[in-house]
């Protein structure tokens, strides 16, 4: 799936200019990867050699960093990303029920995207909403005291069709 930089001069050029914006930054790789992810929604493996060259790192170093952190997914996510908190404080108020409900409603496991590309389901360990849990995040928007019915509403509000 990965597009090589030769096939995608736009990606390569854009990544180079992102690096240029972080020239004065100490230890710039993480801020650069965040910027890449924000712009493209994921970190295409095709950027690895570009970043390695620009930042004077080995490809292995860049690959190692990308794969260490949960945030730097290498494939595009679904049109909506749902993250369910599975940490202790939310477990105490029904996070397991929400997790089971989400996986069965969507028919995917955590870390997977529905076949129609509508929803990516992820787990997260703590969103800092521990007194108003269980917590669910939909496209960066935090929801607290989420009941199973509320979860259904949140899942139903995800657009099913591309461009919808």
């Amino acid at each position: 799936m990965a597009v090589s930089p030769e096939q995608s001069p736009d990606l390569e050029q854009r990544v180079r200019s992102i690096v240029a914006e972080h020239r004065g930054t100490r230890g710039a790789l993480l801020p650069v990867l965040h910027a890449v992810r924000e712009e493209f929604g994921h970190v295409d493996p095709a950027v690895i050699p570009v970043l390695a060259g620009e930042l004077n790192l080995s490809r292995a170093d860049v690959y190692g960093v990308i794969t260490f952190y949960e945030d730097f997914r290498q494939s595009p996510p679904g049109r909506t990303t749902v993250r369910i908190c599975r940490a202790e404080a939310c477990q105490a108020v029904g996070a397991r029920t929400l997790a089971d409900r989400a996986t069965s409603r969507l028919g995917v496991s955590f870390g997977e995207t529905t076949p129609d590309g509508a929803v990516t389901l992820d787990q997260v360990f703590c969103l800092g909403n521990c007194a108003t849990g269980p917590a669910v995040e939909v496209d960066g928007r935090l929801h607290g005291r989420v009941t199973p019915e509320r979860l259904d509403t949140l899942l139903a509000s995800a657009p099913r069709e591309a461009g919808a």
Partner: protein
Amino acid sequence: MSTPVTVYVPRDSAARSVGADEVAERITAAAAATGREIRLVRNGSRGMLWREPLVEVAGPDGRIAYGPVAPEDVDGLVAAGLLDAAGTHPLHLGRTADLDWLRTQNRVTFARVGVVDPLDPDDFLAHGGLRGLRRALELSPQDIVAEVTDSGLRGRGGAGFPAGIKWKTVQEADSALKFVCCNADEGDSGTFADRMLMEGDPFTLIEGMTIAARAVGATEGYVYVRSEYPDAVATLRAAIATAYGRGWLGAGVLGSDLRFDLSVRVGAGAYICGEETSMLESLEGKRGTVRAKPPIPALEGLFGKPTVVNNVLTLGSVPMILADGARAFAGLGTGRSRGTQVFQLGGNVARGGIVETAFGVTLGDLVEGYGGGTRSGRPVRAVQVGGPLGAYLPTSRFHLPMDYEAFAAAGAMVGHGGVVVFDDTVDMAGQARFAMEFCAAESCGKCTPCRVGAVRGVEVIDRITAGIDRRANLTLLDDLCDLMTEGSLCAMGGLTPMPVRSALEHFPADFGEQPAAEPPTTTDLATTDLATTTEARR
């Protein structure tokens, strides 16, 4: 009727998660519909999270609270005189300052959170902001460090290391370049005080870090915030920009010769980066693997330079210590745990939120007193104190005072002050298994006891609960816990046995064991000085 009434609706992400934005919109619309002019302030949260969204209206006798307010309550509230701070609606709670839950606390680090507009620098100044920094700029760096040492302030991130000693080490290190790093990678479940301070009073953190920079001779600082906290990141970035504009950061801080540059760095979803050396690796743009110590970060920290690494609440307590003197802070607390701690009540608790009070308050006071028991209404069965690596304690331990040493003696830890409550439906063998599972998922992989031990731990617990070779597997689990505790490079592997062992010790029946007789209450631990605690709360 011509002066606009001030209405407060929190911008805190917990309040927003339960509808604060919609409430604010509805209030604005309802005010416009009735022709009333209002001044809407999006403050931080007062920390009474079970009452969020908590709306306050400035009245002639102070701020009047209403909550929890759902968006659909707004029209009724306005009709019942909300904008005149009237007291006829059922959601009317009275004067905020008179509410027992708040009145009995001792807000020091959280003094301004929920009170001020987090991004208004003049509001910050009007509530005592920069008093600490101004005094620090009149003192020698040695005297600043002495003040922090004398206050007895210990690291609020969990380890409880004396902040003054750390600062002195960095101060005495010889280097042209030094750093101040704030660990805001608050990944422990049940902790949210760092987030609430950053969202509710970011200038205090900036002030604390600037004082630290002055004390140790640092010129650059970083706040490492986890990516799960986008609101905290945005608030801090906006506050830092304002602080530069006001001359509170950059060259010549407040007209002095101090130069201090501060920026925010965002984590990327790795729990281990809350460990200080792992955080430093991440700040350097690398995989967040743990470093062996020594060398300690105070001498060889970020990019190998002397570095202060402190938690948000530690640095957030510094301005008050400098402003009011070490003695005021040291006068609170118990034993070697001085000052206040910002306790956080979460999980299955009726009244969850922030309880800032002097060390020495008992666990039971927090859970039953402030917390009001469970949200489900069922009996409390267990509480986990100090995050995912903290012990699970039964209600028979509710007499324990919240004090670093008393908790350590009881095989538990105060940690960051997070308390997660579980009712009687909890399966403690499941929680023990989860502790190992979490460690396996979040281990950085550098040391074997943690990386492999956690995986083996899950397997052994599964065999125990399945009833396979129970005796032998319990011995094996005990041995594995010893190995992880003693052999791991950092607290991740080193403390994962704590929730596992405490669950096994206090709730053996869940593992298929015959319940042991309730162990005798250790009288040496039941030494809470209630008089002191009550005194300190006043």
